[in-house]
């Protein structure tokens, strides 16, 4: 947040439009494809703006290692990884502290909608590979993960989609892209259920007054629907 800005990003909002032409409460273009990984039980490919993610589900299957088994419900394992070539600076392969934390919050974001109790002692493994990163990788991964789980036939109460709302040049804006994330003041990733718009992921970095926070939550709630539509359409297209 707030490092030295190159000239071309001196202003991120001009005439209430952002540099990529979007309005302040507009999502980036979204594209979702289902069933892209034949050997997985469920899979999805997603593009949100320039962020590209592959999601695959294997399971429900035997838990390994066994001592992590839960007698009463399935365990959801989530592995989020930025591939080495996904960003401007090469990412060292292997888990990092950042990817560990994101795997955890992503797991929490999706667990609440899965009927895990239907598969005691089993594991559901969700792998999320960030192919290309341009802000919002965890939100994009969650949106893809929910589709891959549905495609795998895992019973779910609801879909989940995620995006971010932030503050750039002092104004609230939905679904930050790369430069907006780098040079903006605040970033708040949020995941919501499709049924009730309940919140399953909430993180925030930066600065929000109480009023800004309330308004930011409202923007997401009012503008997230296209993500659910894209999820449903991708699943319908697959089964057509």
């Amino acid at each position: 947040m707030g490092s030295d800005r190159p000239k071309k990003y001196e202003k991120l909002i001009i005439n209430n439009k952002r540099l990529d032409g979007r309005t302040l409460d507009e999502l980036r273009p979204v594209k979702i494809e289902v069933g892209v990984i034949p050997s997985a039980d469920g899979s999805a490919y997603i593009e949100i703006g320039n962020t590209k993610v592959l999601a695959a589900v294997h399971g429900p299957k035997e838990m390994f290692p066994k001592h992590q088994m839960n007698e009463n419900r399935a365990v959801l394992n989530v592995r989020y990884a930025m591939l080495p070539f996904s960003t401007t600076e090469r990412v060292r392969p292997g888990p990092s502290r950042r990817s560990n934390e994101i795997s955890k919050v992503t797991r929490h974001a999706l667990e609440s909608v899965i009927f895990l109790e239907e598969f005691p002692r089993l594991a559901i493994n969700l792998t999320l590979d960030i192919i290309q990163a341009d802000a919002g990788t965890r939100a994009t991964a969650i949106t893809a993960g929910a589709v891959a789980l549905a495609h795998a036939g895992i019973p779910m109460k609801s879909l989940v989609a995620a995006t971010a709302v932030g503050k750039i040049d002092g104004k609230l804006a939905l679904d930050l892209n790369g430069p907006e994330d780098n040079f903006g003041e605040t970033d708040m990733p949020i995941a919501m259920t499709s049924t009730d718009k309940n919140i399953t992921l909430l993180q925030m970095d930066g600065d929000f007054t109480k009023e800004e926070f309330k308004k930011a939550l409202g923007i997401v709630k009012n503008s997230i629907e296209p993500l659910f539509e894209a999820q449903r359409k991708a699943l319908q297209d697959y089964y057509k």
Partner: protein
Amino acid sequence: MTILQQNKQYITENIAKSRDDGRKHDQTREISIETGILGKAEGSARVQIGKTEVIVGVKVDIGTPFPDTPKSGVLMVNSEFSALASPEFENGPPREDSIELSRVVDRGIRESNTIAVEDLCIEPGEKVWMVFVDINITNHDGNLIDAAGMAAIAALMSAKVPKINEDGTVNRDGEYKGSLPVKDIPVPVSVGIINSTMIVDATKLEEQCIDSRITITTTKAGNYCAMQQAGSHETTEEQILKIGEIAQKNGKERRLIIEKSVKK
């Protein structure tokens, strides 16, 4: 049913009416903070919230800046869940929880600009101050993030910057240039939701009953600078907004305790 399961059921069923230890829903256990407890660290603090105890040491050293930020010092927050603190930490500490705790504390400090890394520059591109904030959990009885967050900021506020010797090394004989420049007092407040009831400062037993935990860090100005939701249950917009208010109110109270502990 095991005793643990019975306890959990009891707490879950009764939480709307009363808490196990008689506290009000928004009441924090007694907080005690002591700073300057460690002789070899540039800053230090011990925070106790009820039986939960956390020690934080701040080490200040000279290092080289990262190539892409030649004018910025380095702030590192690390945490270790010592096997001391809990029987559950013995078979390998809970890596994921430990990483999350240190990252949430780190973000609270970083995003509130409490330590401006530009202030830590000694010689651009060559030498900067490196500030290590090491969190050590000494006894785990719940609410570790809040305890760690308070201990970290108290330790930073108590920290001194050593003089630099003529040969460019850090003076380790106890001569200081002054205090570490600390601009804000970010305070994390974690709220647990059990069966739709919101509680502040959950004990370890209460945490085992929690559906969701939301941590919100507030600044002196009362603004929000960092948030983190955990747990595999949904929360509603109304709950989140309410938790924001709880965090502001409790954050303010705790900030006073922190300020007092550093002054004395």
